[in-house]
């Protein structure tokens, strides 16, 4: 308190220099916007909320991995291809080869994390930018995925995963729904609607909370805790801020980056597994452009492309903005092709806002 070497920082200023500030403002704006133009369209009814929550959760899962990796100073452009690859691996092992689904899932995770480690190894050993190394894997993995699926099944969509996953213990961890009883109770109390026709008449319109959402929340909490509450989190910031300086003070920069590549691959595999389990099929074209969508979420969330600065909560809010904008345009009945225009505009605005705020507060030029 009385240490004259530490400059006094007001609470307001401390709140303002948080990286997620721009994303919080953006989220408030986006919600206000859609409340006004689509408030009565069912977007904010239980069913509508589930709708954009699932899409946002999907973005959040890969955004958490991309965020930590970007703060550590590296990119992973192979995320989208990794999603397609992991899905096909699970489908081939479980449907074509008849392995138990839990084993197929575990093998897919091992393979993906191994590929993440290979990405990290190549980046560290060659000193090449991760942009180039992972760009190579974007193509290698996509090509492998298509080739493998055609080689084993002569198809690029492999279905039937749902049937073989019946009764499996691990599959519901990714594709299941929890709190069904609670939602049935909500419906009984008249808090949420029930279906009035069709095969599910009488059941609540929202069955429960999909595991996809649980995974997203879990990963966000884990990422935020790791980044802000642990020594390893400081290492991540240090590795991305100035790797050489970090090495001088004893931070194991290579190990940090390697682990972050593996964590990004893990997130991609969670995404893929949840998708395969929910839809019961894997396709070689899954995950196209997902790497950039993850980066968009992270950047909207206030992270710096150069590393060393960013926030997991910000990335999660970025994912929420992404999901709400994409689904909201449908609820509001706007021309559907426009959502990409919207997204690009929001990205630019968010980055300008983030940069402006940061310059103003920190006084950097």
């Amino acid at each position: 308190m009385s240490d004259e070497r530490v400059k006094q920082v007001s609470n307001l200023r401390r709140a303002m220099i948080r990286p997620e500030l721009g994303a919080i403002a953006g989220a408030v704006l986006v919600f206000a916007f859609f409340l006004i133009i689509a408030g009565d369209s069912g977007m904010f009814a239980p069913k509508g909320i589930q709708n954009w929550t699932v899409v946002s959760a999907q973005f959040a899962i890969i955004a958490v991995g991309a965020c930590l990796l970007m703060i550590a100073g590296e990119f992973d452009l192979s995320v989208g291809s990794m999603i397609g690859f992991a899905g096909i691996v699970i489908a081939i092992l479980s449907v074509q080869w008849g392995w138990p689904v839990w084993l197929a899932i575990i093998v897919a995770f091992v393979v993906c994390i191994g590929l993440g480690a290979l990405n990290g190894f190549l980046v560290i050993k060659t000193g090449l930018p991760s942009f180039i190394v992972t760009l190579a894997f974007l193509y290698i993995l996509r090509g492998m995925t298509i080739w493998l699926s055609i080689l084993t099944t002569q198809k690029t969509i492999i279905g039937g995963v749902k049937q073989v996953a019946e009764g499996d213990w691990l599959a519901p961890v990714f594709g299941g729904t929890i709190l069904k009883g609670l939602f049935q109770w909500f419906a009984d109390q008249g808090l949420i609607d029930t279906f009035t026709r069709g095969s599910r008449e009488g059941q609540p319109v929202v069955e429960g909370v999909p595991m996809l959402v649980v995974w997203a929340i879990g990963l966000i909490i884990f990422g935020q805790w790791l980044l802000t509450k642990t020594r390893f989190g400081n290492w991540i910031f240090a590795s991305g801020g100035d790797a050489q300086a970090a090495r001088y003070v004893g931070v194991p920069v290579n190990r940090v980056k390697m682990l972050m590549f593996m964590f990004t691959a893990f997130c991609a595999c969670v995404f893929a597994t949840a998708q395969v389990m929910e839809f019961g099929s894997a396709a070689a074209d899954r995950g196209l452009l997902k790497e950039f969508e993850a980066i968009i979420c992270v950047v909207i969330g206030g992270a710096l492309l150069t590393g060393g600065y960013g926030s997991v909560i910000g990335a999660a809010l970025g994912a929420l903005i992404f999901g709400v904008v994409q689904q909201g345009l449908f609820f509001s009945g706007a021309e559907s092709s426009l959502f990409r225009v919207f997204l690009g505009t929001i990205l630019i605005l968010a980055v300008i806002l983030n940069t402006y705020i940061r310059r103003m507060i920190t006084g950097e030029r």
Partner: protein
Amino acid sequence: MRKTFTAMLVATALAASFAAPAMAEGERFVLISHAPDSDSWWNTIKNAIKVAGDQMDVTVEYRNPPTGDLADMARIVEQAIASNPDGIILTIADFDVLSGPVADAVDQGIPVITINSGTQAQSEAMGALLHVGQSEYDAGFGAGKRAAAAGVTSFLCVNHYITNPASVERCKGFAEAIGADVGTSMIDSGQDPAEIKNKVIAYLAANPDTGAVLTLGPTSAHPTLAALDEESLSGEIFFGTFDLSGEIADAIKADVIAFAIDQQPYLQGYMPVIILTNLARYGVLPSGHMNSGPGFITKDSISFVEKYAGVYR
């Protein structure tokens, strides 16, 4: 001994007579599609050219722009022409982009057969020998007529490949058959299954009176099935789709999907190889175009078709 000798002589003569056409064997054809690498539908055509290639003893190369970019496709056509094949088979994904390169091929004396998307008139204008395919507009219109007969007046077209003009034609044909406006009925769904599913749910929530759903292939049909199931609308809403897959076949049997429009892609891969080979070897050519579709697969015909869904059908 003498008998054996005669037999051997006959055998040799027979072998020689079989070998005679073999002199002309080994022609090389190139099939160029507009489909991105991963579009599952094209497997049937890849399998068809493999079968036709083995049967006729010719090589058929499959080329495509990896991302589905039609300008890249024009470059691939130019490369294919430069390699001087015995024939080119290609899709007319965009007449304006492709007519230049195809005219070059025709001028160089390379026979060209157009398949799949595009119209017979466009095929003729390019100078191609003939077109094997189905008219996208007519196929959509035919599907719309079936829906109209069931009393449908509004619909949702789930378009997962909106940048291809042919996909819009399908929606347009359907819209005009039931008297709906295609502009408000068609959504750009993207290719991610969770996004497609949730966009369909969002559209149906915003437009609860929607009478029918049309999907343009397995990529959009599978997530739409999941969306209808989640909305408890399976079997309640009139559902038609283009193309067939295992999941679509199951849905037809369960009365969730009313029909699948089959343009019999196998024929689009198989027939051009056979025609071009016979043209190269014996100079014979059928006159007129070939309609490979549309065929409507319904609950009555499904059991026969589904055995080969995704591989030959």
